[in-house]
């Protein structure tokens, strides 16, 4: 063994370079996503988006970053100093920690935890503390209302998220993310758990505070929510870095547990380079879906947000768990998963369509004609 190899075998050195690798990945992801989101939303709205900095505006995130770093770091005179300066880090650190438990290919991971799925859910739940403290410390009415909305929203939507993931882990029989990916084999879990996938994505969009669930940051109601008083580098840590890293982490998780992760279809056993390409493609698809939903749907009211979670998503999550338990205990064939979960998803779609007027333009048109 060479001196270099034994140097990297040291536990501390090993942990350090893995941390630095994740940090680098995170910076690249955040820079890329700021650009992708602006371009993608511009395309949806039939605009060009950033075009001036570099070809097709490709240098825009760099320009944005320089601007943010040079901006003055303002703090309101009446703000609570310690909490105000601590809040961005309270929001950001948990999101960074979730990245450490995600495997990217069969061999590429920072740490594979036996309870990786539970670790992800548990640690990402801490982010809300940062937002609540940011809103409270700002000493601003809108920031506080936004923080309270964030707290209520994130705590509520954590429940269907946990239950949807729990229903899925019943199928996999494990909470280890590598095991879950390998268990899926040729059929990814989205086929057996369409309702679970819908619940997961709804909770993920809510977790990211994106439309239709962006009541916490709603600029026409609470003027930007918890981060209203933040500027410059603190704003970018609290908002851009946290939100985009969280979006990336949640979408990687979704593609691992629902879309089959790095396993190529038809049982192909290709090398790590292809596995990496596949998982990043799947993650990108999920990220684009989140951005697409964000650009398409109108915001729902704050009371609709809570009743959607507690009266629709939560019972459906229980139904999914109950059905899975029933099928697993009686050993019914696999297609019953698809049948029951698909019926559940259809029921969810019908209830949303008939109860909430959001997303049903035909009904609104019909009403205005009458």
């Amino acid at each position, binding site marked *: 063994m060479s001196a270099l190899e034994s140097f990297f075998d040291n536990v501390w050195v090993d942990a350090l370079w893995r941390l630095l690798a994740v940090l680098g990945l995170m910076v690249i992801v955040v820079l890329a996503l700021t650009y992708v989101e602006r371009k993608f939303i511009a395309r949806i709205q039939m605009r060009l988006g950033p075009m001036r900095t570099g070809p097709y505006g490709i240098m825009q995130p760099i320009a944005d970053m320089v601007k943010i770093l040079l901006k003055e770091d303002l703090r309101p005179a009446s703000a609570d100093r310690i909490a105000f300066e601590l809040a961005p880090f309270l929001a950001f650190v948990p999101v960074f920690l979730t990245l450490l438990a995600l495997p990217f290919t069969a061999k590429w991971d920072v740490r594979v935890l036996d309870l990786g799925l539970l670790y992800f859910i548990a640690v990402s739940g*801490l982010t809300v503390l940062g937002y*609540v*403290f940011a809103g409270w410390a700002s000493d601003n009415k809108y920031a506080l209302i936004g*923080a309270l909305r964030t*707290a209520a929203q994130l705590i509520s939507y954590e429940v269907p998220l946990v239950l949807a993931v729990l229903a899925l882990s019943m199928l996999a029989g494990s909470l280890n993310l590598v095991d879950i990916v390998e268990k899926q084999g040729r059929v990814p879990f989205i086929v057996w758990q369409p309702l679970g996938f819908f619940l997961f994505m709804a909770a993920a969009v809510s977790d990211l505070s994106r439309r239709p669930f962006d009541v916490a940051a709603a600029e026409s109601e609470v003027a930007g929510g918890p981060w209203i008083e933040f500027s410059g580098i603190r704003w970018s840590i609290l908002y851009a870095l946290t939100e985009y890293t969280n979006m990336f982490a949640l979408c990687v998780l979704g593609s691992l547990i629902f879309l089959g992760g790095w396993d190529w279809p038809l049982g192909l056993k290709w090398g790590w380079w292809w596995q990496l390409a596949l998982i990043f493609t799947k993650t990108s698809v999920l990220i684009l879906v989140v951005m697409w939903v964000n650009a398409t749907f109108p915001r729902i009211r704050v009371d609709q947000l809570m009743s959607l979670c507690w009266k629709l998503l939560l019972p459906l999550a229980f139904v999914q768990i109950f059905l899975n338990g029933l099928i697993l205990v009686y050993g019914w064939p696999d297609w019953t998963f698809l049948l029951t979960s698909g019926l559940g998803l259809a029921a969810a779609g019908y209830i949303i369509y008939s109860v909430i007027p959001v997303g049903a333009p035909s009904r609104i048109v019909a009403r205005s004609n009458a």
Partner: protein
Amino acid sequence: MTVTEVIFYFIAAATVLGAFGVVATGKVAYAALSLVFTLLAVAALYILLASEFLALVQVLLYAGGVAVLLLFALMLTRARELVPVLDGAQKPFAAVAGLSLMGVLISMVFLTTWPRRADEPTLINFNAIGDRLFRDFALPFEVASLVLLVALVGSIVLARTEEEEEE
């Protein structure tokens, strides 16, 4: 002193400091933040004892759920304007109660025969926890959840009647 011991004393000091911060700070929000810090440090202690599952549940429920609900309540009730009363005529009784509780807890630690030693932690598979909980102790588990449900419904009923009286 081994590396594990160094880490243990570090985390233990953090736990005690956080717990001290809860009672020593004047601002309620700082107390809540110290509480979160203490809860996370306790989770770290669980990890050090190879109880991963317990640690993660601690983070999920206490640090992520209970502490946020606590903060939520503090911010809604204008706790900043309330000055906590830490001094009063009951001071000696409080001291006696606190010290005797401490004495009981410390003597319990030394009098109990523990099944295992802390320096040789056993890895418990979380499948085994699930089996024990849902097969061997299914009835107590269900009874506990029923008690919690009753408490939940009861608190809602109480809160609702107060609202009606105000109107």
